[in-house]
C-alpha cells in the first residue's frame, strides 16, 4: 500500500483538507504540472515510473525531515505515476502552519528534496520519440 503514490488524477483540495487544522492560518499548495515543452523540444505526455515501495518510504522520510525542521508545520504529499497528459498534475504538496512564512518555506523544501532523492523517473513522449529525462546517451 502506498500512502504517497497514486495512479489516479490528483485532487489538490482533498490533499489540503486532509492536513488542515483549526490552528492553521496558512495553507500553501504546490502542484507540479506536465508542460508541453522541455529544454527546447515539444512534450506530448509524460510517463512516470517509480520504485514504488522505496519512493513511498523516501517521500515519508522527506515529510518527516521537513516537519522536524519546521516545528508546527504539517505536510501532505501525493505523487502520481503512469501516463500523465499535458496540463495534468504529477505531484501535489500541501503545507499548513499557523503563519504563512513557514508554510511557504516548508513547501519549497519538500519539492526540492523530492526532486533530489525520490526514485521516480519520467519518460517524455516527444514528436521525435521517447526520452528518459536526465539520462545522457
Amino acid at each position: 500500500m502506498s500512502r504517497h503514490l497514486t495512479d489516479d488524477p490528483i485532487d489538490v483540495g482533498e490533499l489540503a483538507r486532509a492536513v488542515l487544522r483549526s490552528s492553521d492560518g496558512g495553507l500553501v499548495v504546490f502542484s507540479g504540472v506536465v508542460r508541453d515543452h522541455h529544454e527546447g523540444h515539444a512534450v506530448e505526455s509524460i510517463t512516470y515510473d517509480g520504485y514504488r515501495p522505496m519512493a513511498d518510504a523516501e517521500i515519508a522520510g522527506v515529510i518527516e525531515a521537513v516537519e522536524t525542521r519546521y516545528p508546527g508545520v504539517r505536510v501532505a504529499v501525493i505523487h502520481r505515476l503512469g501516463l500523465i497528459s499535458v496540463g495534468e498534475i504529477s505531484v501535489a504538496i500541501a503545507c499548513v502552519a499557523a503563519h504563512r512564512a513557514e508554510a511557504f518555506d516548508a513547501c519549497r523544501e519538500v519539492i526540492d528534496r523530492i526532486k533530489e532523492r525520490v526514485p521516480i523517473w519520467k519518460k517524455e513522449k516527444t514528436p521525435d520519440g521517447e526520452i528518459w529525462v536526465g539520462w545522457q546517451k
Partner: protein
Amino acid sequence: MTSDPSIQSATGISVKLLLFAVLRDIVGADERDLDLPNGATADDVWQDLRRQHASLEGYATAPMTAINMQYVKSSAVLQHGDELAFIPPVSGG
C-alpha cells in the same frame, strides 16, 4: 545442486536485481536473480551489466545504488537475499 533458494551455498549468494526506467529498457527486464560469489559488491554487479550492454559502456561509475530500499555506496558488499537496485538520475516532481 539444491534448488531451494533459502539455502545459501558455501561459495555464493543469491541477490535480486531490480531494474527501473532507462535501465529496464536497456536490459529488457524488470528484475534478475543473480548468483554471486561471497563478498560481491553492488559495483561488481554494475560492471557486469556494463560488460553485457554496450549502451552502458560509458558509465564507469554506478548510478545511485540502493540495497533493500536504502541508499548505499556502490562499494557496499551484498548479502544473501538482498534486493539491489541501481537508481538512474531521478526526475520526479
